Structure formats: structure tokens, C-alpha cells
């Protein structure tokens, strides 16, 4: 135990004295949170929408006001050209055009079926989807406010329902995923580099000829990084809460538990990589390719798994981030309990056991 302490302490010195690793450890999570929170923003605000009101009733005028008073939409600069809505879309002066045909006011009053036509610039897929759902929300609110309680307007049916992230804020969606990415990055990348460094400088041989057990070496080297991984995770969550107002509804303890399982899995992958390579540079390349890439691409972080080709879907099953992502999103955004993601949890534990087993085996073989 005492020997483990010396190895962990030495590792801490390495981290604290290497400005580059310090930079990776503390600046990157903050930077990535900013990037994903702001730059890669899928939220839609102030979409320019042109409303062509051919109905010209009180009802239609109120709907128009509702649109422009919402945070989602704003007026086009040049309202004189409203005669040709399609020209507006083509010239990209407006991202959407709402056409209120005559008869809207009467239909609202009588409860008749009526269609408003919404034209959306479909060249931006994310934008058009957002505009549709926002327009629906504005319309629904308008109708609700005009009706006495309990009265349901026949003719209007809204199939769209947005849950858990009612504002469809992409930061809410990204931040939990970001925790998953950062954790595996720090754990796998830094541990594989630090072990490869000991091989590169020959100090690993010194450790192996000293009366230190393999698990002392491994644990001693890993513990500082486990601590750092958790510090980083906390950093992102606090940051996300303060800057983007990302909520944390569920149990912190539950997240901590699964975070630990996930970090252990990631560390095992790091050890596995370092057993296979002898230089820090190779370790870094392998770690980035084997952890970053699948964690971003195949975990559902950005792209939904169910839309992927079969091979990639199958491959995603051995990506630990896939399971952790579901779990952390569930806990943070939905306040889900253990029962909800017992399957994901079990898979994560299984992956941890498998990776850890192979890692320790390969470390022993690679060094002894």
C-alpha cells in the first residue's frame, strides 16, 4: 500500500510539472463545453419568418403577433416584398413563410378544420425541423389561450410532443455526452501515454526489477487519473449548469457509481493500448482513434445509433460511451432511476470486466 502511494505521488508530480498535460486536463473540458455549447449550437433562435396574412381578421392579427413576440421568430427586414413569399425564401431573406389564407378567423371561431401553410427552407435540415416544431408550439399556445378550459378544438391535431428537453436546447443534449467523451479521453489517453512514457524512458524496467507488484504499479499510476477524471466531470457539470443552465434532475450518487464503472472501463482500454505500443506518440494516436472517435461517432452523442448502417450499429455495442451516454442523459435530464437503464448498466459492467481482464493480462505479458 505504501509503495502504491509513492507511485501515485510521483505520477502527480509528472502531471503537475508537465504544462501540456495540465492544459489537456483542465483547459480541454472547459473548451469543449464552450465549443459544444455555443459553436456547435443546434438551437434555433430568431428565425426570420415572413407571415402573409390574407385573412386580416382579429384572430389572424393576433397569431401574427404571437409569432413575432416569441423568442423563436423575428420579422424580415424588408416587409414590402411579402407579395411573393417564395421569392423571400429563395433570396434567404426569410427562413420560413407562414401563409394565413382567408377564412382562418372564422374557422377558429367555429372550430372548423383549417390548414395554415408553412413554407420552410429545407436546405438546412436541423433548422427546418426546429421551425416546424416551434411554429406548432406557437400555434398550439394561441389556440389553447382562446378556448375555455376543457374544450377541445376539433380540426386541430398536433402530433408533435417534445419531452425532457422542451426547449430542444442542444446544450442540454450535448453536455451529458460531453462528460462521457471527456472521461474516456482523460482516462484512456492520459493513462496510455503515461505508461508508454515509462516504457520509452526505460523507467518501467526499473519498476519491474523493484519489489513492486504489478497491481501496485497499475493502481498507483491510475489513481491520480481517476481523481482527475472525476474532477473534470464535475468541472463540466458545474460549468454547464452555470453557463448553459443544464439541469441535473436525478441522483448524483447513481451517476458517481456509473461514472466509476465507466472510468474503470476507459482506464482498462488505456492500459490495453499502452501494452501494445512502446512510444507516447503511438499511444496517443491509438487512444484517440480507439476512444475519441467511436465515443463521438458511435455512441449516439451526435448521430442517432438507430439511423446507422447495420455494421456500425453492431460495432456500437462495444463502445462503452454508448451505454454511459444513455445512463447519464437519463439521470441528468429525466431523473431516471436504476430500474430504467438496468440493461445499459449491466452492459457497461460487462464491458468493464472484459476490458479490465484483457488489460491486466496484456500488461503482465507486455512487461514480464
Amino acid at each position, binding site marked *: 500500500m*505504501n*509503495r502504491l*502511494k*509513492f*507511485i501515485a*505521488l*510521483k505520477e502527480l*508530480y*509528472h502531471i503537475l*510539472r*508537465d504544462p501540456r498535460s495540465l492544459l489537456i486536463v483542465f483547459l480541454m473540458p472547459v473548451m469543449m463545453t464552450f465549443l459544444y455549447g455555443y459553436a456547435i449550437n443546434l438551437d434555433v433562435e430568431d428565425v426570420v419568418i415572413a407571415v402573409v396574412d390574407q385573412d386580416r381578421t382579429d384572430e389572424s392579427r393576433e397569431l401574427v403577433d404571437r409569432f413575432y413576440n416569441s423568442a423563436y421568430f423575428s420579422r424580415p427586414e424588408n416587409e414590402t416584398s411579402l407579395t411573393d413569399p417564395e421569392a423571400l425564401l429563395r433570396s434567404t431573406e426569410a427562413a420560413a413563410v407562414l401563409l394565413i389564407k382567408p377564412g382562418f378567423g372564422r374557422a377558429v371561431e367555429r372550430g372548423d378544420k383549417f390548414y395554415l401553410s408553412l413554407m420552410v427552407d429545407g436546405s438546412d435540415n436541423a433548422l427546418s425541423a426546429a421551425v416546424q416544431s416551434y411554429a406548432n408550439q406557437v400555434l398550439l399556445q394561441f389556440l389553447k389561450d382562446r378556448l375555455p378550459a376543457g374544450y377541445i378544438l376539433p380540426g386541430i391535431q398536433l402530433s408533435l410532443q417534445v419531452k425532457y428537453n422542451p426547449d430542444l436546447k442542444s446544450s442540454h443534449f450535448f453536455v451529458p455526452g460531453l462528460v462521457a467523451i471527456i472521461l474516456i479521453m482523460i482516462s484512456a489517453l492520459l493513462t496510455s501515454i503515461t505508461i508508454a512514457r515509462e516504457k520509452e*524512458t*526505460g*523507467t518501467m*524496467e*526499473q*519498476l*519491474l*526489477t*523493484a*519489489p*513492486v507488484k504489478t497491481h501496485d504499479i497499475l493502481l498507483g499510476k491510475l489513481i491520480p487519473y481517476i481523481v482527475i477524471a472525476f474532477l473534470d466531470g464535475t468541472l463540466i457539470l458545474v460549468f454547464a449548469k452555470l453557463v448553459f443552465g443544464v439541469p441535473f434532475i436525478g441522483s448524483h450518487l447513481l451517476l458517481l457509481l456509473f461514472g466509476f464503472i465507466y472510468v474503470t472501463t476507459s482506464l482498462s482500454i488505456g492500459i490495453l493500448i499502452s501494452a501494445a505500443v512502446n512510444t507516447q506518440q503511438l499511444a496517443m494516436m491509438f487512444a484517440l482513434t480507439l476512444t475519441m472517435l467511436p465515443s463521438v461517432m458511435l455512441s449516439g452523442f451526435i448521430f442517432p445509433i438507430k439511423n446507422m448502417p447495420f455494421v456500425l450499429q453492431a460495432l456500437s455495442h462495444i463502445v462503452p460511451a454508448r451505454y454511459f451516454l444513455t445512463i447519464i442523459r437519463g439521470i441528468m435530464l429525466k431523473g431516471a432511476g436504476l430500474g430504467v437503464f438496468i440493461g445499459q448498466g449491466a452492459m457497461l459492467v460487462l464491458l468493464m470486466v472484459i476490458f479490465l481482464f484483457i488489460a491486466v493480462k496484456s500488461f503482465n505479458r507486455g512487461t*514480464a
Partner: protein
Amino acid sequence: MSFLNATNIYKSYDKITALREFSLAVEEGEIFALVGPDGAGKTTFIRILCHLIRTDRGEVTIAGYDIKKDFEKIKPLLGYMPQIFSLYPDLSVEENLKFYAGIYGFTGQAFERKRDYLYSFSNLGPFARRRAQALSGGMKQKLALSCALMHDPEFLILDEPTTGVDPLSRHQFWEILLQLKSEGVTVLVSTPYMDEVARADRAAFVLDGRKLSEGKPDELAARFRGRIYFLNEEPNPTLVENLNRIKGLKAQRFGAGMHLYLDENDDIARYAQALAQLNIAVDKLAPAAPGLEDRFIQLTETGS
């Protein structure tokens, strides 16, 4: 039974055979030197002793323990200093010492006593807070040795510890080794320097994975066959080449001059005419006693 017993070690890498039928015995309390050119197999042998690589065939025992079965028991006895500098460059002199003491279980006062003792003959005390990467080559080697000595090993294994180190530091380094020997430490050291071999108790010449000759330094040198003359003339390559063209004569650069090698029954007078053509008078040649280097060259070239 010897302190170290290696019997019939055979080790090959993909296409290269590094050691073949290699046997060596080192007695307790002696300094044993392994000498041979690069690629002779010295480092492979040392790494086998430290259990960093496995033999294909052969047995090794250290202090009576079989290296395959009981390496854990050998570890505390062993102090190993690898060929390349392998301490932590970003740790200070003292932190390196503390770390190595720590992983061998030496902490607190036991560490401080040992540290002060090691500082006393390494002279690294004033540099205690300097990072290892900022040390000179000689100081690095002394620090590496100090780290290897931190846990009072009984058996010190050094792989070319003085290669690339200035002569004064080399001398100081060997003073430390002799001091350790007087304290009862057994030392196995590989080196390319003949003057260091001369300071060892015994030595072995290694070539192509084989042990060619073994014994006390003066015995080794005395096994030279033939006569040697020292030629006090600048050993420029053309001259060496011209001398070697003379049938029966061999010339080799030696220090500031040259050594001329003749067969045992030969006579330098036979070459007077040939030498005169190169402006060399026979009476300028002084008979010389064979040294380790002469014998080593002979072994390298003839294999016996």
C-alpha cells in the same frame, strides 16, 4: 556455489542469435566485468539476469534462487542500472532518490540516512533540488547509481554505466564501485573500456553471444599469443594501411602510437627492409607487454 550462476543460456530474437551456450559464474563480493563490442550480447545477458527478458534455454540462479521460480525473492537483493539513463527527468535528484527508496520500502529516517550516505560519495548533495534532466552526463550516472543503491542491494548489475562519461567522472564512478566492493557488494558491470576491465577482479570477453575468454585481467592479457612492439609514430590511416600490407606483420592504433603484432617465433629484424621503406627504423621499436586491448583484438579477429 557461486553467487550468480548462469548455465548454457541460449537466446535468439527473430533472426539474430544474441546468446549461445553462454555460461557465467560470479563469486560473492567480486567485481566482474563483461567486455565486448556492441551487439556482443552483454545487454541481453544483463536483461536476462534482471528478468526483463526470458531465456530460450538455460538456467540462472542468483544467491541460490532460481530466476524463473523465485524472482520475487531476488528483487530486493538486486540493484540494476540500465544502459540508457532511465530516471524521471522531471523529478529532482532528491525526489528520484525518495521514489526509489519508497518503492523498496525505505521511508522516513531510513531513507534520510541512506540519502545522506549516498550524497557523501556522489557529491550530489548541492544539486538535491535540481531536476534530473538538468544534470550533466556524469552526474546523471551517479544519480542512477545512487538510485540503484538506495535499498542496499547485495548484487549490483550495471550495463555500461560509464559510456559517454568524461574520464574524471569515470574514475570517480569506479572509486564508488571499489568502495561498494569493500562493503561486500557483488558487482557485475559491462563496459567497452579496457582500463575499467583492468580494475575489475575478473572479466569475460564476449563476442557474438559467446564467452571467448574469462579470468583475472592480467591473466586475460597474458593469454596473448605473439610479440608486440610499440611504434611511437602518429597512427595516420595511410601508415597503418601500409604497415598491414607487409606480410606477417599486423599494425593497430594504440594510444598515441601503434602496436605491431608478430608471431611468437618471428623476429622484428626480418622486417627491417620493409619498414625502412616506410621510413621506420627498427631500433625505434620497443618491445611491449601485451595488454587487455591487444588480447581483445586478437580474440575478436581470430576467435581464440
